[in-house]
């Protein structure tokens, strides 16, 4: 294969690798020289790992604590919310009591107002004209404000019949 038109050109490239190969072959078989163990500085590494560990533990602890804290706060806020909504309910109940038709009718009658059953005038908003023949209401139009008291005798009221039902507890307190 070497006897070609340009022997020099052929020989040169092949000769060198052959040398190299032999050297390589020899080098492979040689015992690797004992390298001295590298004395990499240990301290920074240990510090680094410790810091990571410590940071992890402390972070976890802080995280947990803050979660707990949030949980405490949640409980406290929930209690507060319950209190506030109970307060709101109480206020709404007061408002309801004030708006009760009986109460409004009583106040109105105390001020001398009644619901009329006499003819009323009608004001037409389009023309601004009042039609009808309005007549002032009279005291005859007043209505009873309360319904009659229960007909059960006093002794039978509330306690006995309620006791059985509420396990002996008094009835609702308003």
């Amino acid at each position, binding site marked *: 294969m070497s006897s070609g038109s340009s022997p020099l050109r052929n020989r040169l490239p092949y000769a060198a690798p052959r040398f190299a190969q032999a050297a390589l072959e020899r080098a492979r078989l040689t015992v690797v020289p004992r390298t001295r163990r590298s004395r990499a500085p240990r301290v920074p590494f240990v510090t680094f790992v410790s810091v990571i560990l410590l940071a992890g533990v402390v972070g976890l602890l802080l995280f*947990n604590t803050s*979660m*707990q804290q*949030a*949980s*405490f706060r*949640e*409980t406290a806020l929930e209690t507060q919310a*319950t*209190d506030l*909504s*109970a*307060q709101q*309910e*109480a206020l*709404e*109940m007061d408002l*309801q*009591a004030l*708006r*009760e*038709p*009986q109460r409004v*009718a009583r106040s109105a009658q105390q001020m001398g107002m009644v*619901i*009329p*059953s*006499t*003819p*009323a005038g*009608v004001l*037409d908003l389009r023309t601004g004209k009042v*039609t*009808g*023949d309005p*007549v002032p209401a009279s005291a005859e*139009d007043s*209505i*009873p*404000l309360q*319904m*009659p008291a*229960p*007909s*059960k005798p006093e002794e039978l*009221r*509330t*306690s006995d*019949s*309620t006791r059985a*039902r*509420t*396990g*002996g*507890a*008094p*009835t*609702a*307190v*308003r």
Partner: protein
Amino acid sequence: MSRPTIRRQHGRLQRVPRGNPQRRMGIGFLLIAIVLSVFAARLVQLQGVDPRSYAQMAAAEGSRIVALPATRGEILDRNGELLAETVDGRMIIANPVVTAPVAAELATYLARRLGVDYIETLERLRAEGSQFEYIARRVPASKAEKVVADIAERFKDDKDRPFTGLSTERDPLRIYPNDDVAANVLGFLGENGKEGDEAAVVGLAGLEDSFDAWLSGRDGEARYEVGAGNQIPLGDNTVTPAVDGKNLTLTLDRDLQFYAQRVLQQTVVNAAGESGIAIIMDSRTGDLLALADYPSYDASNPRDYPEELYKSSALSDVYEPGSVEKVLTISSLVDAGLGAKEQHFRVPGQLNRQDRPIGDYWEHGTLRLTLAGILAKSSNVGTVLAADQFDRGQLRSYLTDFGLGSRTGLGLGGESKGILPDGPDWTSQVGDRIAFGQSLSVNAVQMVTAINTVANGGVRVDPSIIQGSASTDEGATVGSGSATTRRVISEEAAQETMLMMERVVDPEAGVAGRAQVPGYRVAGKTGTAQRVVDGVYDGSTSVSFAGFAPADDPRFTIYVVVHRPRAGSGGGSTAGPAFAKLMSYTLRRYGVPPTGTRPNQTPVEW
């Protein structure tokens, strides 16, 4: 390949004799197999035999289950005013072991703050051998917590620790802010009378009862892990949310209901009557704007009243309607083409029929009345003569179409459907009496719906008390959203009947001048029916007035009934003025102007 070399090296180093490697491996595997078998057996025991109880034990360890009670729906009137609501309430519980030493002082304080009975509270605070005594139930939450907190502060022990004798538990409180207004419709809540887990608070009357499932919703549950009273973050946490009850919106108008109840009360008391009913209906929609019963009860304190009152007598009590029913007879006649408002009748003072003579409430010789006159003067004899023109069964089929003899389906429990005789029971005598409103029984809602058919141009609209649609515990869907309509009589017949009914309130031509509403045209009809008590007419009566206004463009139909008024009371003189008051107020409240036309003057005699 290289193993023998290594072994030889090791062997040379340790010089320990070893057994057969196969045997050693066998023993090793055997040991592993034994251990794994134990694990497997334990696994089967845990998972196969009774996994639930172990799972529960595991869950119970450190976990807490909290019931999430569903909030009961509110009941509102047509304008959104509250008729019934649930608020957060508390029960206050005493531990007599702790409270006994300070019982007297504590009872005084509790009596002052909560209005509980002093003696009773004292006994409870001193109860021996008990650690759990109710002091008060269904106290509004804010009040209960404040009282208990104040007491904890006030009754400190000698080491300055807060008092621990009282505690609170959740105890929802149902409130009826208007006490007796619409109580007959709303009903109330109470214990179902069962013990243990079955015990619950349920509706015991009215809508609270018939819509119990709709209103109450479904309770939920939260399950979470706790530590020191706080939820553990990231711990197991499952929540089944509560499904709150749905609200119920009624067609009632609270203020109108209040006024109707009070006017009815006044009317019944003034007539020395036993009971009464007043119903206000929107003519076009069939919505009941007021459904008043007297006597009624206070929904906030139902136990103070006898149980017979826990109902709506407008639905549950049936009675003979009397002359108000003549409107139905005569409008049917007109619709069948058998009558006209100026048709001439010779009406004798008495009519001798098979079993007994039929007479009018007033003595008269032979009168020459028109059909309008028969209605305006409320002549039984005239009505029977007019009804003679019906074919057999014709009147009954009209009355059935008007809705008599079948339930109205309002959604309130305990409705009686009344009696409309049928087949052999409808003898000619019975037919005669039914023509003027005796020998059949109706409830008041049926009757007002039938009269409203005339007001609504001959089309009957189902009455409704629920706005929209809601389903009752029995599964029926009721409400204005599912109300149906059907034509009973022609529009012309309804118009002609209205003209005749208008003559009833004419001070000269009719019998109920006091039912007039000044400024408005009113059409109506009086009724005075004999009452059947234990199967016989005992001489007592039910007087009533039903009508609508404005007559030429009806907006409201009102029906007032007074049972057992003092002798001599009539529908026109007793129920008429109450009708006028209610109609006048309702028209004004809803801003209905007078139509400006004049009442018709159809002749009543010829």
